[in-house]
C-alpha cells in the first residue's frame, strides 16, 4: 500500500438519505488520493429543541434551581440518545467506506453548529465532502440545502457537493471561466491524485470575450502536460444553460467549478451563478475556493 497523504478528507454527514452516498464518494476520493478519511457528525444542541409542557406560570420555592436541574437532566438524556444513535450511524458508514476501499477511516462526533465546527476542523483537511441537502432541507422543498452555501462560503478548501446517488465518475467537466480561482483550480487538478485517468472536458461559456480563447488554451495545455485526456470547448451563450445541457449530452458525472466569487451583498441583487449551477446540474460538483 502506498504511503498515505497526511491531509485528510472530511466527510460531513447527517442522518439523511445523502449519508450513504457521501460515504461512497468520500471513499472513492480517499481511495484515489490515498488519504485518510474522517466522517464528521455534528449534533447541534440548539436543534434538539425545547420542551415546554408546563404552562402553569407559577414559580415556587427554589424555582430556578429546580428548573435548572430539570432542564439539565432532560438535555443529558437527549444528548446521550443522540450520541448513541450517532455512534451507530457513524460506525455503519465507516464499514461502508472501508468495504469501498478507503484506506484509513476515522469517525468523530461533535456538539456545535455546522459552519462553526467545520471552520474549527478545517486545518489538516484537503477535501470536504458534503451532501447538497441534508436532514435540515428534507422538510422544505429546496433544491439546495441552506447549509451548503454557508459552508462553502465559510471554508477555504475544495468541497465536493454530492447528490443522492453514487455513480463512479468516468468523465469530468471543468466549467472554466478564466478567473483566478479557476486558473488556480487547473493547477490544483494538474497536481492532484484525484483525477488521473478521467477524461476532462474543459468548457468555457458565458460572455466570451477578451483573451478567453488564450486562457482556455493555457488550461488545456497545462492539463495535457499533466497527462490528462483533455477536450476544450468554447461555447458562447448563457453559461448556466450551456453547462447544464453539455453535462447532460456528454454524460458528465463530475463537475468542477469555482464557487461564490462574489460578495453575499452582490448576490442578493444579482443572484449567484454558483447556486444556480448547483441547482440546475444534478451531478456531483467539486467547488473550488
Amino acid at each position: 500500500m502506498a504511503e498515505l497523504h497526511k491531509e485528510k478528507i472530511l466527510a460531513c454527514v447527517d442522518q439523511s438519505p445523502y449519508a450513504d452516498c457521501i460515504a461512497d464518494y468520500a471513499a472513492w476520493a480517499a481511495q484515489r488520493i490515498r488519504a485518510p478519511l474522517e466522517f464528521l457528525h455534528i449534533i447541534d444542541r440548539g436543534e434538539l429543541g425545547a420542551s415546554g409542557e408546563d404552562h402553569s406560570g407559577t414559580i415556587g420555592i427554589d424555582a430556578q434551581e429546580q428548573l435548572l436541574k430539570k432542564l439539565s437532566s432532560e438535555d443529558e438524556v437527549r444528548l446521550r440518545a443522540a450520541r448513541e444513535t450517532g455512534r451507530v450511524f457513524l460506525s455503519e458508514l465507516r464499514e461502508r467506506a472501508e468495504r469501498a476501499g478507503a484506506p484509513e477511516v476515522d469517525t468523530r462526533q461533535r456538539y456545535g453548529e455546522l459552519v462553526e465546527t467545520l471552520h474549527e476542523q478545517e486545518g489538516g483537511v484537503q477535501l470536504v465532502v458534503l451532501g447538497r441537502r441534508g436532514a435540515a432541507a428534507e422538510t422544505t422543498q429546496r433544491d439546495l440545502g441552506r447549509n451548503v452555501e454557508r459552508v462553502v462560503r465559510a471554508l477555504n478548501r475544495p468541497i465536493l457537493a454530492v447528490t443522492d446517488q453514487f455513480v463512479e465518475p468516468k468523465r469530468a467537466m471543468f466549467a472554466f471561466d478564466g478567473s483566478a480561482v479557476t486558473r488556480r483550480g487547473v493547477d490544483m487538478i494538474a497536481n492532484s491524485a484525484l483525477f488521473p485517468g478521467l477524461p476532462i472536458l474543459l468548457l468555457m461559456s458565458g460572455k466570451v470575450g477578451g483573451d478567453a480563447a488564450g486562457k482556455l488554451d493555457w488550461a488545456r495545455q497545462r492539463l495535457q502536460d499533466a497527462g490528462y485526456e483533455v477536450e476544450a470547448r468554447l461555447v458562447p451563450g448563457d453559461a448556466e444553460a450551456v453547462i447544464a445541457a453539455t453535462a447532460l449530452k456528454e454524460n458528465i458525472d463530475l463537475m468542477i467549478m469555482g464557487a461564490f466569487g462574489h460578495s453575499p451583498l452582490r448576490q442578493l441583487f444579482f443572484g449567484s451563478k454558483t447556486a444556480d449551477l448547483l441547482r440546475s446540474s444534478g451531478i456531483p460538483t467539486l467547488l473550488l475556493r
Partner: protein
Amino acid sequence: MLAQLQKDWLSNARNDLLAGLVVALALIPEAIAFSIIAGVDPKVGLYASFCIAVVIAVAGGRPGMISAATGAMALVMVTLVKEHGLQYLLAATILTGVLQIIAGYVSLGSLMRFVSRSVVTGFVNALAILIFMAQLPELMGVTWHVYAMTAAGLAIIYGLPYLTRAVPSPLVTIVLLTIVAIWLDLDIRRVGDMGELPDSLPVFLLPNVPLNLETLGIIFPYALTLMTVGLLESLMTATIVDDLTETKSDKNRECVGQGIANIASGFIGGMAGCAMIGQSVINVKSGGRGRLSTLAAGIFLLIMVVFLDAWVGQIPMAALVAVMIMVSIGTFNWSSIRDLRDHPRSSSVVMLATVAVTVATHDLARGVLTGVLLSGFFFAHKVGQILYVRSQADPDGRSRSYVVSGQVFFASADRFIAAFDYREVIERVRIDVSRAHFWDITAVSALDKVVLKFRREGTEVEVIGLNEASATMVDRFAVHDKDGGEDLLLGH
C-alpha cells in the same frame, strides 16, 4: 446572519408564542403592582412593560429573557415621583436609557465579574423581600375578606399546578377572585381604584419638563441609580437564562438594548424597567427560548389590557397581592438560608450585608455596592494570610537568613514588617524573597522599611531573588537604595 436571525426568532415558534402568552398573563399583575409601588397610574407600568418587552425582543442580547417594568426599578423612583411628579420620571427614564447605551458601548457589563455569587444571592433575596414588603400596605387595616381572598389566591396558585399545568394558575386566580368580588359585591380595593388604566394604544409624547440644568440635577442621580440597578438585574438574569438554556448571550448588546428599550418607554409615557428574574424563569419553564417569546409577551399584554380595561379595573387588589407573594417566594433563594451554615462565614456576611443595606435603603445599587466592597475586603484579608516568613541563623552566628513566601500587599504589609527581628545583634541579614510576590507600592515600601530598620541597627542587609514582577515594582518605587531614603520613609 440571516440564519442567525432565523434561529433567534423562528426556531422555536410554537413554544415561544405559548410561553409569551403565559408570561403576558403574569406580567399584567406585576406591571400594575409595580406601578403602585412607584406611585404612578397602572397605565404607566403597563405601557412600559409592553414597550420594553417589544423593543428588547429585537434589540436585546439575550433571546428568551423577559424585560418589563420591574420592582427593583420601581423602588428607586418612589421619591422622584413623590417630589417631582410623573413628567420628571419620564425624563429620568429616557436619561437612564442614554446612560445604559453608553455603558454598553464602554463594555461596563464586564464589571459584572466583580459581583460575586454571594452578592447575587443577596440581590435576589433583597429583591424578594422588597417585593413582599411592598404588598403589606394592601394587607393592613383591611377587612377579613381581603385576607380570605389572598389566602384563597395563594391556594389556587400553588394547588392548581398539581391538577393541570396547561393553564397559568395565576390567571385562574385572578379570574376567579374577580368573579367572586363582583358577584358578592365586596367592598374591597380594586385595581381601578389605584389610578388610570390604559384605554388606548400608547402614543408618542415628550416629557413635559423644562430642558435646563436644574432638571438635569434632579433626574441625573435617579437615572444613575436606575441605570445601575437595571443593568445589574438584567445581566444577572441574562446569566441565569444562559445557565438554564446552556447558550450564550451578548452582554454588551443587552446593555445597549436595555437603554433603547428605556428610551422608547420614556417617550410613550412608560416608566423605566429592566429584565425580570421571575418572569424569565417562567418563560423558560413554559418553553420560551427565542426572541419571539419576549415579543409575544409584550404584544399579548397590550392587547389584553387595552381591550379588557373595564375588566382589569375590577380585579381585586387581593388577587394581585397573591400573585406578587408568589413572585416574591419564587425569586427568593431559599437554599441560601440552608447554606448559611455550610458556606464560609465571609460569604454569608456579604450576602446578609447586601440584603440588609438594600432593605434598609430600598436601593439595590447601594446593597450591591456594599456587597462588592465587602467581598473585596474579605478577599484581600484572606489572600493577606498567605504570607510566611521563616528564618534561620547561620552556623557562625554572624548572619541570619529570612525566607519570605506568599503575597505581600497592602493587607499583609504590616504582618510582613512585623515578621523580622530587628533587635537581634547580628552582622548580616539575608532576605530571600524569590518565593514572594510584591503587588503594590505598600508592599514595596514595606520592604524598604524592613531594610532601613535593619540598617539603623547597624545590620547589613542583602535582598535576593526578587522575581520579575516584584523587581519591576521595586525598581519603579523603591527608595531604600537612594540617598536620603531613610528620612523619607521613616519620617524623622
